């Protein structure tokens, strides 16, 4: 309902109430005063007739009485006049066409009329005349009769009706004026408001990037009007401007946030690509089962795990936790992981050395004062010996025979805390079915909504219950689920990183590739070698390039032994053993020929003319570049050359 309609209705109701109240009141007052007046008028007439009529009535001159009576009938409001004589007979009256029966009844009834001079009044209802005030006054104390005067109440009613109608008309006129004024006034108030309402309705559909376009009438109201409507309009315009600014800010920050988010997503992907994610890792290695998982608290985190073969038999496993979260931690993590990979590739190193070396590098330029807790261990997959170094990290757990124990600490401080820190090495002998569980504090310090940490106790209990039941991947999933269950709705506050290594014991099947043995004097040696290599690689698992390189290296080295290994006495025998390792194929070539270290061959002079070069030099040089961990030793009158032919990702290098 519109405001003007409402105020109109309100005024209508008010006026109706006032009009009714005033009319009722004035009708009442008028009735009272008029009936009083009529009564006294009737009484005056009665008195006058008593004065005038008594003598004539006594003289029995009714025509004169009637003339006097008639005079009064002409006055306003006099319904009738009649006179009764001493006998109660009506001797003069003004009724037409006849005396009403009520009047006859009244005169015939034995009535106690006033004997004193004062007239008396009663109300009567008479057929054809309506309601009357009936006044009677005695003549000569009733001895000469009575004068009766009837004052017409319907006359009063008509009069009152006329007055009330006039009043109502007046009210109607005033109402019309008031309504007109009210409607125009409320319209004047309501127009800016409805303009504002229309403007506001459009607000939701408005494109705020467009120019602000306030309707001129609204602008005028805002500027000119000092009342509440003006204030409201001003407030509204201000609000829209604020809204506009806010939306612009929001748009900008949203864009920024989206950019950062997408960058963080990329960073997350990069970080995830930094840790090995292909599981099961080394399925061809029956000695162990290894699984790991990293759940960053944010898009990027400071945790990482890593594992790789240092050489054919030693597996490096590591877990680390940068002392922060988010982007800075992730950068630090990338640095640390790169360091680990770089330092850890050295076959002559050990975990303590790695830690020491990394600590040096991290501490030297640690402007951001970040540090890393880390655990690094080398597992000799043949013997099951785990040599390890713990740099301030939570001690890994060892599940053995249904019991969980902490791996003894090596008392090293976190990397990056002190350049002078020392790191010592410890060893543990793993038995078959032992399980090593590495984790970061994201597991143990995961909070439930009440702020209670998951804790190492719970973790150890869980592992104890799960002992021997699950493979590593299922175990990890179980732990993560348990931690999440504990945290319930609480947000993950730290990265959760886990690594489980189950040791199966040294495998018999490990070097099942056939050995090859031949006399260097055999003219068919190279052909046999070729067939042997074909046998080794015939399963088609190895990439073509690796097969090619392997053949080239084998042929070069065997040919080198045949050429240079001849002795003066005895037969030179060449043995080739090929082992499957995590990173590739481990080769060991033994011969009982003259001592010769292929690594000692100088780098060929590539600038010299081809025909002047020493034969074989170029081949051996090429061989060493094609393989890794190329080593030579003289062992029990034998030359032993070992190397690793990578078959994995870096095989092509």
């Amino acid at each position, binding site marked *: 309902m519109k405001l003007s309609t409402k105020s109109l209705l309100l005024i209508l109701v008010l006026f109706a109430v006032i009009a009714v109240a005033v009319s009722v009141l004035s009708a009442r007052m008028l009735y009272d005063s008029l009936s009083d007046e009529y009564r006294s008028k009737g009484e005056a007439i009665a008195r006058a007739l008593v004065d005038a009529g008594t003598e004539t009535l006594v003289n*029995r001159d009714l*025509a004169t009485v009637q*003339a006097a009576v008639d005079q009064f009938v002409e006055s306003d409001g006099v319904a009738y006049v009649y006179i009764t004589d001493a006998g109660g007979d009506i*001797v003069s*009256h003004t009724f037409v*066409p006849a005396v009403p029966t009520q009047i006859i009844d009244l005169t015939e009834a034995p009535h106690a009329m006033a004997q004193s001079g004062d007239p008396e009044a009663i109300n009567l209802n008479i057929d054809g005349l309506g309601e009357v005030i009936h006044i009677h006054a005695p003549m000569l104390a009733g001895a000469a009769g009575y004068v009766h005067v009837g004052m017409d109440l319907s006359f009063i009613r008509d009069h009152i009706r006329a007055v009330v109608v006039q009043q109502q008309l007046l009210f109607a006129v005033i109402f019309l004026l008031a309504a007109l004024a009210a409607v125009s006034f409320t319209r004047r108030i309501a127009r800016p408001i409805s303009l504002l309402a229309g403007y506001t309705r459009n607000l939701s559909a408005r494109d705020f990037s467009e120019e602000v376009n306030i309707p001129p009438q609204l602008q005028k109201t805002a500027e000119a009007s000092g009342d509440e409507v003006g204030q409201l309009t001003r407030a509204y315009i201000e609000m829209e401007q604020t809204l506009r600014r806010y939306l612009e800010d929001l748009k900008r920050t949203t864009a920024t946030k989206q950019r950062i988010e997408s960058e963080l997503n990329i960073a997350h992907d990069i970080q995830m690509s930094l840790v090995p994610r292909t599981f099961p890792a080394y399925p061809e290695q029956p000695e162990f089962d290894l699984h790991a998982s990293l759940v960053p608290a944010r898009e990027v985190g400071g945790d990482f795990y890593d594992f790789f073969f240092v050489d054919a038999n030693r597996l490096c496993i590591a877990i680390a936790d940068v002392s922060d979260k988010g982007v800075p931690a992730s950068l630090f993590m990338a640095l640390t992981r790169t360091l680990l990979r770089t330092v850890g590739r050295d076959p002559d190193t050990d975990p303590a050395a790695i830690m020491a070396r990394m600590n040096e590098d991290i501490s030297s330029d640690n402007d951001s004062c970040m540090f890393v807790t880390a655990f690094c261990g080398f597992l000799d997959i043949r013997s099951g010996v785990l040599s390890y170094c713990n740099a301030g990290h939570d001690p890994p757990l060892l599940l053995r025979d249904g019991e969980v124990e902490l791996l003894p600490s090596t008392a090293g401080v976190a990397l990056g805390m002190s350049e002078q820190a020392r790191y010592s090495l410890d060893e543990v002998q793993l038995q078959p079915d032992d399980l090593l569980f590495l984790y970061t504090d994201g597991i143990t310090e995961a909070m439930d909504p009440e702020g209670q940490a998951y804790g190492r106790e719970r973790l150890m209990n869980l592992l104890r219950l799960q002992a021997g039941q699950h493979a590593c991947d299922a175990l990890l999933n179980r732990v993560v689920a348990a931690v999440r269950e504990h945290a319930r709705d609480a947000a993950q506050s730290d990265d959760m990183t886990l690594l489980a290594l189950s040791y199966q014991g040294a495998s018999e099947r490990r070097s099942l590739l056939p050995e090859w043995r031949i006399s260097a004097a055999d003219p068919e040696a190279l052909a046999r070698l070729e067939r042997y290599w074909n046998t080794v690689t015939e399963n088609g698992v190895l990439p073509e390039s690796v097969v090619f390189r392997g053949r080239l290296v084998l042929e070069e080295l065997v040919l080198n032994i045949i050429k240079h290994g001849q002795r003066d006495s005895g037969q030179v025998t060449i043995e080739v053993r090929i082992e499957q390792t995590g990173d590739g194929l481990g080769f060991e070539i033994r011969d009982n020929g003259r001592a010769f270290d292929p690594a000692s061959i100088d780098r060929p002079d590539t600038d010299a003319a081809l025909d002047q070069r020493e034969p074989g030099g170029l081949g051996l040089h090429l061989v060493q570049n094609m393989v890794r961990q190329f080593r030579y030793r003289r062992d029990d009158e034998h030359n032993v050359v070992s190397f690793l032919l990578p078959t994995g990702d870096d095989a092509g290098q």
Partner: protein
Amino acid sequence: MTCPRSLRWLLASGLLLWAPFSLAEDMVLGMSAAFSGPSRSLGIELYRGSKAYLDWVNEQGGVHGRQIVLQAYDDAYDPNQTVRNTLRLVEQDDVFLLFNYVGTPTVTRVLPLIKQYADRPMYLFFPFTGAEPQRRPPYWDLVFNLRASYHDETAALVARFLAVGRERIGVFYQADAYGRGGWEGVRNALLRGGREVQVEATYRRGFDFDTSLASQVEILRAADPDAVIAICAYAACAALVRDMRDVGWDVPVANLSFSGSEAVAALLGQAGEGSAIDYGRRLITSQVVPSYQNRELPAIIEYRQRMDALGPELPPGAVGDYHPQRFSFTSLEGFLNAKLLVAVLQRLGPQPERAALRQAVEDLREVDLGIGVPLAFGPARHQASEAVFFTTLEQGLFVPVEDWTDFRSDP
């Protein structure tokens, strides 16, 4: 007034020229009566009857050389107008006496005023009403009546009805002093025989013939009276008879002289045109003068002569659509009034004085106007006649009621 000086001189010289021919001052009589309205025929015919005689007197040289001038004003039967007319007649016109007033309410109202002029004194002669007020104290001494009173008329009617066995008398009357006077007459007459008015009904003065009186007829008939005495003016009388006969109620109806017999007859004649009903039947009218058909009476012969000699002149205020009646009871009464007044004025001598009037009238112990009954005034007798005559309508004509047995009560 911006009357030119020369014109004033001319007027003055004209008066001077006229004066020597006037032997004596005119005798001016003041009259107030209804010349318009429903009762106008009364006033007009009364005026005409008087005028017929006065014109003849004036033709004969007047009374003691004085011309008798009838100064008349219309009061339309309205008592207030009658008072105003009287004031004008006395104060402005300085009339010698008041004459021929018509109606009871009018006369009754004007009596106190006349009393006011008692020191002049101012007398009212022969009002056309049978009402009591001017026949009783305190006004009786200032008024002289010729006609019998309503009480005389009603008493005579009641006596006749009782004589023919009609004892249950209903009264239909005008709701004013006239009606009341007549009603009182009937009531008193009945009371004397130990009876009461059987039933009564009224109507308002100023009644129009076209108005229905059905409700009054119903009221009257409900009480089953065997005669109705109507004290009314002619329109209501005619309407009563019409409405009674229309519902098949044919008890006798009696009118008083005041009703204006010819007018009643005329209205009933109109109503009866094309109707099987004889409205004139069983309609009795009491008269205070003899029938103008009775040419055995010298006064009637004289009256008829004078009326035929009278011009078509109407009193002032009478509108032109009025058709004067050749003869009527009313104009006969006016004629007789004038004749009796002239007899009084004759006795005043050539130098008439108002103060001598009463004595002159009271000294008229026996007068014969030629109507078959003697008239007499006396010191306590200001009504010259008590004679009542009865007429009834036969074929539109008024004939004397010869035999009341015709109206004997139905067995």
